[in-house]
């Protein structure tokens, strides 16, 4: 079982780890298929609270947008994999992660003509 935490802004990955209020925790079975999905709402945006949730929920991977170096290092010390600077849909992120094809900096959303 592997727990993946996604930091959300609606249906998309939130641009900033420290300002997000919505989380999605997906538990993947040994075959890589989602076993359980849970939405978590934080009372207020806080990177510290998010780090505590990562620890208490036994999360192995965090998928997020911009994250401050301090928290990236902290989670690294806790042996939590952080895939950061993701722009785009959380569903696409989960699907790519399951295929082992998600890496930091990936752009998952379609650009629209500005």
């Amino acid at each position, binding site marked *: 079982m592997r727990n993946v935490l996604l930091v959300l*802004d609606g249906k*998309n990955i939130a*641009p*900033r*780890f*420290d*300002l997000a209020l919505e989380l999605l925790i997906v538990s993947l079975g040994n075959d890589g298929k989602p076993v359980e999905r849970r939405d978590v709402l934080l009372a207020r945006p806080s990177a*510290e609270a998010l780090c*505590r949730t990562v620890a208490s929920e036994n999360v192995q991977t965090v998928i997020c*947008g*911009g*994250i*401050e*170096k301090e928290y*990236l*290092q*902290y989670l690294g*010390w806790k042996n939590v994999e952080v895939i*950061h*600077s993701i*722009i785009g849909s959380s569903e696409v992120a989960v699907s790519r992660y399951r295929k082992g094809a998600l890496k930091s*900096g990936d*752009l998952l*959303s379609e*650009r*629209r*003509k*500005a």
Partner: protein
Amino acid sequence: MRHPGVLQLRDLQINLIHVLDEIPIGVCLMSKERRIIFINRALEALTGFSSSECEGLPCSYVLRFNNCFDNCPVDKAQELEGCVLEGDIINQANEKIPVRATFAPLKDGAGEISAYVETLDDLRQACNFDPARINPFSFGRIIGRSPQMEKIFQSLPVLSQLDAPVLITGQIGTGKDLVAEALHHASSRARNPFITFRCGGLPEVLVESELFGVEKGAFPGSGYKPGKFRLAQNGTLYIAEIGDLAPSLQTKLLNALDAKTIYPLGSTKSFQADVRVIAATSRHLSQMAQDGSFRNDLYFRLNAVSLHLPPLKERGEDLRLLMDHFLHARASLLNKTVSGFSDACLKTLQQYGYPGNILELRHIVEYAVGLSRTERIELCDLPAYLTEDLTDLDAVPPVLDLPQPSVALSAEERLDWSAVERKMILDALVKVNGRRSRAAQLLGWGRSTLWRKMKHYGIVSTKVPRK
């Protein structure tokens, strides 16, 4: 009546992109739907995104400005015909940068909003670097009171004024990044970009494209990438872990330093780079230069001006200073009333070896402040790896199943390194009352090395029941 020069200027065909690129503060043009149309070179340097990468993306996903999420400045700009806000952004290098942002709507002939323009001014210099703070005990955000650091603080103002490349050496977590940043902020290039690039763990082609840039179409499907040298134009490029740079790129970097000419990947056209390079490594570059894994000439070029940062365990009184500094900074950030350490906690922290240096100390203290529920940090608030062995072994004195180490070695044993090593381990264990982590410290080994060797020599500790 307008000045004739202004009228002439109005009729000129001006390349707007070129003009915006030369402006030293970040400029972003966005559509009515708040999607990026263009960002200038200064904003590319600040955010880490290239203009082509972020074209068409929602502005909040690229700029990551904190006010975007609860106090959208574009809404304000619509109401007020423009607004100025201070806040922070998080860039691609995971740095939180304080900025002053200005927003204004661009209107067409009919007065309808057709786009927005936003400027972002980097406030790091104003927030972090106060020249008044230059004294023998600090420089920029680096603090220390030990004689080694005092010497460094005295040399930093001089080094910052030189425009030559600088090599910073020191173990992981000794503060090389902070020193590089402080050198930039104290230099005449301070108003221009400070760009960081880490060579470690990246494939050679990626390092080359990131560092020197890529011409559009250099290889199938490749787009334009400005490269760190272009982004750092007129400023400073900080290359971390330069010891990991591939030999072919060492040659290219040497050419860039000597001729100040950069050839992007796939381009025959060069550009002149006015960039100061600060390099850092935790490796022994002199040794690498001797054994041929690092170019001698590049090493000599970089090492002409060099700075070595001592490990934390050699900084004596700085340990306490840094502990208090991180404690107060974290406590104030979390609005906690934690004001000090208990005696037992202090003793543990002062006895620990800090292989991760200041970075490790900072994480330990921040973790402890986060957990602490009292005014003083107790032993139980520290990360488990610092205390578990000590408490286990304090409670349960080990019984060693080997002869007493005081027994003199025989002549044959003296010739046998294994016997000597075994005796060293036993002596160390006896000296520290069986505390394995203290024994490892005494022997200058990691705890896992000690445990492996104890297992190898059959030194077993048997737990006795608590009384």
